[in-house]
């Protein structure tokens, strides 16, 4: 027998959400009305309710003013209020500085020009006096070791903003956690509050195995977001509210893949394994379609069998749908043809399934022309698949502003890198290196992803989407250098840098003697006039920022 070493197979709960969670905590939770009526028998033996509460949930204490969730943040957990009172800020939303975010102020022409002489030769210089003001809005939670943004003047916020109260028993954050969409409002603690935070995996199991939790989550989703989503879906354009209501009533929610896909994807890439084989199947070629699948968040690969292998035809993202053309053809012809393609989840995907009979009643009769069949993409030459395969395999489909360089034009002069440095205090925010295919390179510059996994878990909300343009930016003032975002980015496009003071001295934490770190990345020159300097600076028109969801991101607008 081959010489082998033994270890227990890793299990899902090897790393609990909070190791401090005790059996006594779980027993107390099980006495609450939210869990009291749950039938433990509905849960499989390997996934008991107690196990979910112990391993996928944690108790969190918030002091008055602590912000629990921030509008616009991407979170991976939901909250149940156990004690205390919270406030949801309805309108107007909290200003960015109260969220620990930066003002999206743009420099004027001369202020931008002044960078010519104000940029420093020493890398990563920071004026540390600035941080003192930022720190006033941060509070250290010594029990958990976390840093939180907090509101100092609660009465002023209550005066200026319309708010609603959340008390004992209220659940919030579940739509953002399961649907991978930004939080729609900010919530802060008005009094001392104790909350149960349930990470998305636990929430998913509660929804799956308990009817009450499923109904509660689904009803809230139906009430809050579903109708808006259906109204914005192209195939339902022009339908009146009553019809949309009927469709919403019959719509089913499904999720596939892992919420933490970026972590497993990085591991697969490091091991040099093919991620495609691990993609969960949503719909299989040859199966009979029972409804149209609307993609609410995430990405999916459309592929078909080819010989003994398969080929990727395209990928679908938020707002796209699958199976509509086959259902329509079946309805029109009266036949029952199976699906001609396979749909697999690329990472995490949130899907709405609208049953076929609903479409046959409300949608197909209004359809003037047959929809274009996805299978028609199979008509293109096989060699044309390679670029799409590359974009999907490398997850570039997530990019809304990928830096794409045409290497057949690029003379490798690095004017783009210099231009980037000139707009960021002398420090470039990307490396002209990255993944290449044929004569295309996607560089290691932030792609401002549609699914920005880097934003999950930032303790201070320093990394966020700017309200102005949706760009993913980092507020240097509130970044605590924890590196969560850099570790999460599947593309290694966020860099942790050691900072120095204005005299060039390296800044070191007096307690740990470790250098102070800050997360840095491309911000699309958001504060600079004229857009990304890298694009403007390329003398050979080789560099573009592209949205991989476009029909053909590789086609140059100037070609």
């Amino acid at each position, binding site marked *: 027998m081959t010489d082998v070493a033994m270890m227990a197979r890793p299990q899902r709960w090897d790393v609990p959400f909070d190791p401090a969670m005790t059996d006594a905590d779980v027993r107390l939770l099980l006495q609450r009305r939210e869990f009291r009526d749950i039938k433990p028998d509905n849960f499989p033996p390997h996934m008991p309710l107690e196990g979910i509460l112990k391993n996928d949930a944690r108790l969190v204490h918030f002091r008055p003013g602590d912000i629990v969730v921030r509008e616009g943040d991407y979170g991976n957990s939901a909250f149940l209020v156990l004690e205390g009172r919270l406030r949801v800020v309805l309108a107007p939303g909290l200003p960015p500085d109260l969220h620990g975010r930066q003002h999206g102020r743009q420099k004027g022409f001369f202020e*931008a020009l002044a960078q010519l002489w104000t940029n420093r030769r020493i890398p990563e210089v920071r004026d540390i006096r600035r941080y003192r003001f930022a720190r006033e809005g941060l509070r250290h939670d010594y029990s958990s070791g976390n840093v939180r943004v907090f509101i100092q003047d609660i009465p002023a916020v209550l005066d200026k903003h319309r708010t609603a109260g959340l008390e004992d028993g209220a659940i919030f954050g579940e739509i953002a956690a399961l649907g991978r969409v930004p939080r729609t409002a900010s919530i802060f603690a008005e009094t001392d509050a104790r909350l149960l935070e349930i990470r998305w995996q636990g929430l998913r199991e509660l929804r799956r195995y308990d009817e009450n939790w499923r109904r509660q989550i689904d009803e809230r989703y139906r009430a809050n977001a579903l109708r808006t989503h259906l109204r914005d879906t192209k195939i339902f354009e022009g339908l009146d509210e009553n019809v949309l209501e009927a469709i919403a009533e019959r719509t089913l929610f499904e999720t596939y893949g892992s919420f933490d896909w970026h972590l497993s994807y990085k591991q697969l890439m490091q091991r040099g394994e093919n991620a495609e084989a691990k993609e969960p199947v949503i719909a299989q070629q040859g199966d009979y379609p029972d409804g149209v699948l609307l993609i609410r968040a995430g990405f999916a690969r459309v592929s078909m069998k080819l010989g003994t292998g398969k080929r990727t035809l395209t990928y679908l993202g938020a707002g796209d749908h699958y199976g509509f053309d086959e259902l329509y053809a079946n309805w029109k012809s009266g036949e029952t043809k199976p699906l001609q393609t396979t749909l697999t989840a690329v990472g995490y995907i949130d899907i709405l399934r609208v049953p076929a009979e609903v479409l046959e009643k409300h949608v197909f009769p209004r359809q003037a022309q047959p929809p274009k069949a996805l299978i028609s993409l199979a008509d293109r030459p096989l060699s044309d698949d390679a670029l799409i395969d590359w974009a999907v395999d490398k997850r570039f489909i997530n990019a809304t502003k990928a830096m794409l360089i045409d*290497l057949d034009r690029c003379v490798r002069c690095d004017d783009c890198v210099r231009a980037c440095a000139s707009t960021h205090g002398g420090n470039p925010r990307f490396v002209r290196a990255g993944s290449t295919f044929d004569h295309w390179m996607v560089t290691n510059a932030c792609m401002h992803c549609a699914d920005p996994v880097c934003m999950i878990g930032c303790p201070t909300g320093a990394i966020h989407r700017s309200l102005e343009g949706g760009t993913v930016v980092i507020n240097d003032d509130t970044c605590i250098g924890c590196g969560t975002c850099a570790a999460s980015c599947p593309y290694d496009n966020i860099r942790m840098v050691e900072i120095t003071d204005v005299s060039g001295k390296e800044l070191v934490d007096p307690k740990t003697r470790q250098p102070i770190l800050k997360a840095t990345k491309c911000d699309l020159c958001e504060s600079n006039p004229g857009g990304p300097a890298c694009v403007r600076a*390329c003398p050979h028109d080789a560099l573009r920022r592209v949205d991989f969801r476009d029909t053909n991101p590789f086609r140059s607008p100037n070609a």
Partner: protein
Amino acid sequence: MKALARALAVPAGISLLFVAGLALWLHQRWLQLGDTGRITGYILFAVMLGLGVLNLRKRLSMVPLARAADWVSWHAVGGVLALALFWLHTNTLWPAGPYEQFLALLFYLVTITGIAGYALQKVTPKWLTQTGIELIFERIPIEIVRLRLTAERVVYDCCEATGSETLGRFYLETLDWYFRKPRFLTSTLGGGRRGQRWVRQQCDGVARALQANEISYLETLRQLADAKALADIHYSLQGATKLWLLVHVPLAAAVLVVALWHLLVVSVYAL
């Protein structure tokens, strides 16, 4: 090619119209026995100043001053326009007088380096892409050192594993020189692959003298040498695209200085 034609079409069209109009106007003025030299001289100097601004624009990438690609298109066409203006101004290919000849020499050198550089920039990207690897110029020496250290490790391993010194001797006599720094630069600059041919010849030559258990080490060395050849291509081509600017820009600055003095002298004597 289409993209290149499209990029140059507008500046070329406008310049052509400008030169044609100017030539017509100068001809009329010449028929009236007017002085055309001073006008063409001032225009030529203004165009040369305009061409020089491209270098300034590169330093001002923090402000929106239109796309650098458009600037380069105008610069390329402006360079040709300057040549046409130069001939209109001097009425000859080679002027009389040592100072004017010096100025003309500098002007022609700037023009030639400009055209050569423009051509180089259109050709080298494709050659670099064809290597199948991407290297940042400043990191190429580090990459070569890495390859050399790996190659040396392979040779040590071979000597240790086989007890034979043949591969070690071969390495010291041939490949050590090759791995020391970028080689065969002029060949790669012309699109040649002399480096790879040289490696093949050397390796094929020694293969006959090696035992079967040494061949796999030689093959690893050959792969490392091939990787080094690709690094050499990058070093040569990327180096050339940087080096030509170090010739073109100082020459252009010299032309402006010499032309300014020429302009001052002519203006003073014309008073």
